[in-house]
């Protein structure tokens, strides 16, 4: 099986879908001729032509607006927002249109739109190239939210998203594009080629939306994580020696609450990790669900390890980032609590 990094895996997902389905079109700022500022759409315009893979004006709201219209026609648009930090101008079309069209028309019209956006810190992008705004979308009924943590899932989930008849917000942790990132910025990047989940089939396959994955089985504490933080959690477990069960959520909405509950019922303890700001982050929903479903199994407070409640500061990226040390301390607290 070919080894792919996450950029290649995502590219392959679009390649496969453009090849299979003439209704798939791909567009966004710089995605056409250039192939995207992160090269995720590299070569696709050359292969499928400018009518199917094209550059769009710098207007995220317009990009989503036309995507909804194309979806209503019957296409499966895949729109890129260049950074998750720039998704806000598209908020109205996402919330008021994409997420509501099927409901308000009682199923007459719908918008099978996939919105891809790189998220998270780790590239010294400062506060406007590092954000993780997923919780603004997981609150919106009608939207699905997906965040992969590795090339294999990235491709399978993106294919599922494109084939999905509901709008999907698909966040790509940019720090993982080139290699698994265990939270230690000082270490040289490791290649996805050396990671089992960097083995990615070239052909069509799906990873289902709504199903979590056990990234590490363990007995002492359940760690709920997604995206970059899966790898940080794995590093923290290894470094602390805490026998953590690390669950890679993969999809935030619909949430695989059964998998979560099964694990927490087993371990009796839970640590939630995300890079997004703490207050009102998706970790809050996870904590609420866990205590609702597993109250009588819980032996310690559910811990949240998250980005601080500040914008992502350029100079303090690594003090902001919830790294293995912070996660490790939470693992200890949770297992000792």
């Amino acid at each position, binding site marked *: 099986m070919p080894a792919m990094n996450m950029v290649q895996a995502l590219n392959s997902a679009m390649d496969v879908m453009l090849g299979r389905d003439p209704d798939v*079109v791909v567009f966004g700022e710089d995605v056409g001729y250039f192939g995207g500022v992160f090269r995720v759409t590299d070569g696709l315009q050359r292969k499928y032509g400018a009518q199917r893979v094209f550059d769009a004006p710098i207007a995220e709201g317009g990009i989503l607006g*036309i995507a909804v219209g194309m979806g209503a026609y019957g296409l499966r648009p895949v729109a890129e927002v260049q950074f998750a930090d720039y998704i806000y101008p598209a908020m109205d079309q996402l919330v008021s249109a994409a997420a509501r069209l099927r409901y308000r028309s*009682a199923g*007459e019209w719908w918008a099978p739109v996939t919105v891809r956006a790189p998220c998270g810190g780790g590239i010294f992008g400062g506060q406007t190239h590092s954000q993780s705004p997923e919780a603004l979308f997981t609150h919106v009924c009608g939207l699905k939210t997906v965040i992969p943590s590795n090339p294999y899932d990235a491709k399978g989930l993106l294919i599922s998203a494109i084939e999905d008849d509901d709008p999907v917000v698909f966040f790509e942790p940019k720090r993982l594009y080139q290699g698994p990132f265990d939270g230690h910025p000082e270490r040289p990047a490791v290649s996805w080629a050396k990671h089992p989940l960097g083995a990615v089939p070239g052909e069509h396959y799906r990873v289902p939306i709504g199903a979590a994955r056990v990234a590490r089985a363990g007995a002492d504490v359940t760690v709920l994580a997604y995206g970059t933080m899966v790898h940080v959690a794995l590093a923290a477990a290894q470094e602390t020696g805490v026998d953590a069960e690390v669950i890679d959520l993969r999809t935030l909405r*619909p949430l695989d*609450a*059964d998998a979560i509950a099964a694990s927490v019922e087993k371990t009796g303890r839970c640590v939630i990790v995300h890079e997004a700001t703490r207050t009102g982050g998706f970790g809050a929903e996870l904590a609420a669900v866990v205590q609702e479903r597993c109250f009588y199994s819980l032996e310690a407070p559910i811990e949240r390890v998250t980005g601080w409640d500040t914008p992502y500061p350029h100079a303090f990226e690594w003090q902001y980032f919830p790294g293995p040390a912070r996660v490790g301390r939470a693992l200890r607290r949770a297992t000792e609590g």
Partner: protein
Amino acid sequence: MDRSPVLRLHIPEPKHRPGEAADFSHLRLPRAGSVERPPVDSGAFAMRDLAYALIRVLDDEGTAVGPWDPQLDADTLRRGLRAMALTRAYDERMYRVQRQGKTSFYMRSTGEEAVAVGQACALERDDVVFPTYRQSGLLIARDWPLVDMMCQVYSNSADRLKGRQMPVLYSSRAAGFFSLSGNLGTQLSQAVGWAMASAYKGDHRIAAAWTGEGATAEPDFHHALTFASVYHAPVILNVVNNQWAISCYQGIAGGDESTFAARGIGYGVPALRVDGNDFLATCAVTRWAAERARSNLGPTLIELFTYRATAHSTADDPSRYRPADEWEKWPLGDPIRRLKDHLVGRGEWSEAQHEAMRKEVEEQVRAANREAEAKGTLDRGPLPPVASMFEDVYREMPAELRRQRDELLGGR
């Protein structure tokens, strides 16, 4: 540098407020027939003066004159007249049932019937329209059953939208009528996307979208013009300038500084400005734009100059913010009367026929309403099954929603 005079903030004000007499003498209304009709492949720059003109076909005597006369046969005109009359009768009835408490809300398009009906006349039945709440006439012109529309207004057991939407926020895929949104403007860029998809697929169908002049300030208007221009989308973008946006006169949207049609020029989108109360003119400009779109020449922006004759909605009281006699004084008249006069002048219609038709459409509306009320009203039901509330959020109901539905049904 000379720094006087000191700066001051300008707040636009309409010419007249309640208690004063309306006066439209400041309007520059070109003679009917006086505006040229450029070829459909003209560029936005070349034909830019049309954005400041006013295309009129019917003159003061009701005669069709000039290059924009669409030369419609009398049957077509009688059909249009009837659709306009039916729209008005429908509006009046629905307004009344709202007042009787049978539903929550209603919005009329009185005085603006030549917009939706006249433009529908220029479109093919399978072109898809992306309207606002004031183009119900599109459905009526496309012969969509009144009963179906009424069931939506009542949110009743036969409402295809399952009671989810406020009255008048219709949807009819079968009629090529896009689901109406309460969020102003959003349909504009969607229509462009739909049109781009149609072009991408080598289809024949074009799209048309409407906005009020007030909502042109929303970003989607800008996005629609930008994307339509860049990709030459086969779409017609219509601004219905009915002078008012709830309580705000059109100057609050920028209408004192320019026309709304003129917005198009800067994007390279050809723009036409038309007497919105002149059925022949609205049909003619729309035909021009449709031909343009179908010939891969791209989008057109049309401003339809008209007047909102009644309140914004049943929740509104216009006597609080505009002179009581504005509609009376409105110089472009009543679109129904004007088309009637034209047909009468051509010897194709008579006052008696008109009166008979008026009664007929009223009866048609009354009968439809009886049928619709039998299927339920908002105040008394029957309504759709309550569990349907959980459907269509997603194509398949996720587990958490099933749980919530069961919670509701189980009274837990």
